[in-house]
């Protein structure tokens, strides 16, 4: 998608590209958002991964496909330990229905919201206990959504 941008700017967490329908979209930690094209979009879409914004030092990710071609994205970034990320962990747990781009379910902990989850367009805080509980809650909710015939 953005090999050239990557080459030019190093690791970036949000990139801007044109979708098949010709609209400009952001691809970032929260998925793909269509955005209106304003001026030179490329310059303001770029957010460096390194630094205090919770930049990713190292990533560990798994993308799993189920029988119906739904996608489960499970990503952990090792970030600099700071007041923004006291645990030095940033994560993204996304369930994306087959053929869709925006997650139907998304758990993440980006600053300043902390642990929270998105169900469709609805968003709420998530009370984090352990990582094991977090991923179990995510999968329980995702498999219910996967079972629903849309």
């Amino acid at each position, binding site marked *: 998608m953005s090999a050239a941008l990557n080459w030019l700017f190093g690791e970036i967490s949000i990139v801007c590209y044109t979708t098949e329908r010709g609209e400009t979209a952001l691809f970032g930690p929260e998925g793909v958002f269509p955005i209106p094209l304003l001026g030179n979009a490329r310059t303001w879409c770029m957010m460096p991964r390194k630094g205090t914004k919770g930049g990713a030092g190292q990533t560990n990710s798994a993308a799993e496909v189920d029988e119906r071609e739904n996608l489960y994205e499970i990503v952990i970034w*090792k970030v600099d330990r700071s007041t923004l990320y006291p645990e030095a962990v940033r994560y993204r747990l996304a369930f994306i229905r087959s053929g869709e781009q925006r997650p139907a379910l998304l758990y993440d902990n980006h600053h300043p919201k902390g642990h929270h989850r998105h169900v469709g367009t609805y968003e709420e805080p998530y009370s984090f206990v352990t990582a094991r509980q977090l991923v179990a809650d995510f*999968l329980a909710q995702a498999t219910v959504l996967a079972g629903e015939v849309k």
Partner: protein
Amino acid sequence: MKTVTFSIRPLNEVADDFAKTYDAVRTGRRISKASRDEVGFTSIEAARNFLTRERLSLMRTIRTRHPGSLYELAKMVNRDFKNVQEDIRILERHGLVRISKESHGKRTVKVPQVLFDEIALKIAI
């Protein structure tokens, strides 16, 4: 020869890895980097559903006959353009195919490329 691995991993294993990695990062231990050339599937059925005869044929055709556009590819495999486009989109999403855009005068042509020569199946028992 470049190989992509389809690994069959049930979701509870993925969850287990997540929890372990999370705690490793939190406590400052080293984490091993996940392989990039791997596509995960929740079951053998999931992998089988994904890798249809048509999609495999698309990848073969791209690798051996080098179509100059998606339209040319659709003609080579004698399939409807829209269906080919949809299959390519899915293959691209999982990193098996790359589309490079080339401009021919005023038109932009999407040239498909396969990134691997073979697919290996990995199943933990």
